[in-house]
């Protein structure tokens, strides 16, 4: 694990686009602090010899040294990373478990499926994260700052907003627009970074464009098309992407 307590993950795939997709998903995960990528088993060995990784996301079929061969080699390491196979070959699952892989994911990977695999990596690394994050309280969060500095639309400069007062952060290009009781403010931080920073204090990504403070949510309303809306205390309705509905329902025990 990294100094921040998150996972260090090395993803290996000879297909550059698939690797870019995995990298994007990993960088958006609140469980992950550090991501490295390699396009071959040889390159992966260079990374592994130069640093500690909690998890290895490994394509099964690659030129020269295949993923399965690399996994077998890693079993000789004193403290090997947990291996999760990524593949377009569903039939390789049996072999994957013979080399004691933690998980086996068929591409393309959904973020929910990836999170389940990362949870196994966390367990393997000896770290357990509560399924439901602590609800925001009046006490400052122990794991991060309890205020953020936002652009002050009146007169310029910065204005401080307490995290617990923020209901929603909405993607706004490379920045985020936060919804607070006394207005909406621009925060010069990408939503993906806020998702990582604020997950410990009860924020959840419910949609590509929305990060929500679950302490302000009062109702999860399912829609016929499989998506949902999250109703906030002030009546604002936040869209929930289809792929996030099940996980959100579990977190809210809804």
């Amino acid at each position, binding site marked *: 694990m990294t100094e921040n307590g998150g996972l260090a993950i090395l993803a290996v795939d*000879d297909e550059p*686009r*698939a690797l870019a*997709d995995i990298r994007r998903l990993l960088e958006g995960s609140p469980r992950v602090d550090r991501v490295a990528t390699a396009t071959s088993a040889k390159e992966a060995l260079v990374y592994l010899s130069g640093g500690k990784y909690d998890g290895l996301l490994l394509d099964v079929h690659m*030129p020269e040294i295949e993923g399965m061969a690399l996994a077998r080699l890693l079993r000789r390491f004193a403290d090997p990373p947990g291996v999760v196979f990524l593949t377009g070959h569903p039939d390789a699952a049996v072999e994957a478990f013979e080399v004691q892989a933690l998980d086996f994911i*068929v*591409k393309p990977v959904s973020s929910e499926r990836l999170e389940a695999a990362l949870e196994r990596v966390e367990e393997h690394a000896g770290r357990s994260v509560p399924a439901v994050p602590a609800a925001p309280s009046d006490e400052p969060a122990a794991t991060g700052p309890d205020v953020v500095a936002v652009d002050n639309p009146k007169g310029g400069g910065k204005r401080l907003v307490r995290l617990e007062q923020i209901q929603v952060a909405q993607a706004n290009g490379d920045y985020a627009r936060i919804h607070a009781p006394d207005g909406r403010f621009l925060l010069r931080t990408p939503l993906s970074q806020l998702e990582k920073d604020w997950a410990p204090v009860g924020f959840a990504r419910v949609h590509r464009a929305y990060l929500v403070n679950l302490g302000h949510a009062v109702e999860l309303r399912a829609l016929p098309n499989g998506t949902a809306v999250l109703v906030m205390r002030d009546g604002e309705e936040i869209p929930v992407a289809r792929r996030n509905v099940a996980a959100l329902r579990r977190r809210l025990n809804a």
Partner: protein
Amino acid sequence: MQQRSATERAPAPVSVHFVNNVLAAAASYVDDDPDEARDVLAELSAFLSYRLRTEPLDVPLAQELDHVGVYVRLQQARFPDRVQAQLPGRRDAPDVRVLRSSVQDPVAQLLGGRLGEHPGPARLVLRALPDGSALEADVSKPDGGDLARVHIPLGMEVAPT
């Protein structure tokens, strides 16, 4: 003309591995190049529509070459810097009918095998022989090294079953 029964000439099954990896590539474009993501999905749709159809058994060579082009573009979406291709245009295609996927299958075996087994770029050249009796597909390094070739006879008829 050679003849084969319809059961002998069935196209190879669509590779789940290929489809999953194309979808993974499409997913990777969604955020940074949505138009490309859409194009990859449209090409995959065209590829599957052609491959999953069972009738007619034979098609004009020009149509089969279009299908080969779709396959190559899907491989280029997976490996943007690794696949170079030179395919005959419709005008260069002999005016014959061929069995569905009878060109794309061997090309896929040749190109897919190269990409899966060897790192680095690969160049595919597909051309018609001057007498129009066959196509030749070459896969090599861009400088012509490590050449592998497959000969694809044309003009097979489908025997009644």
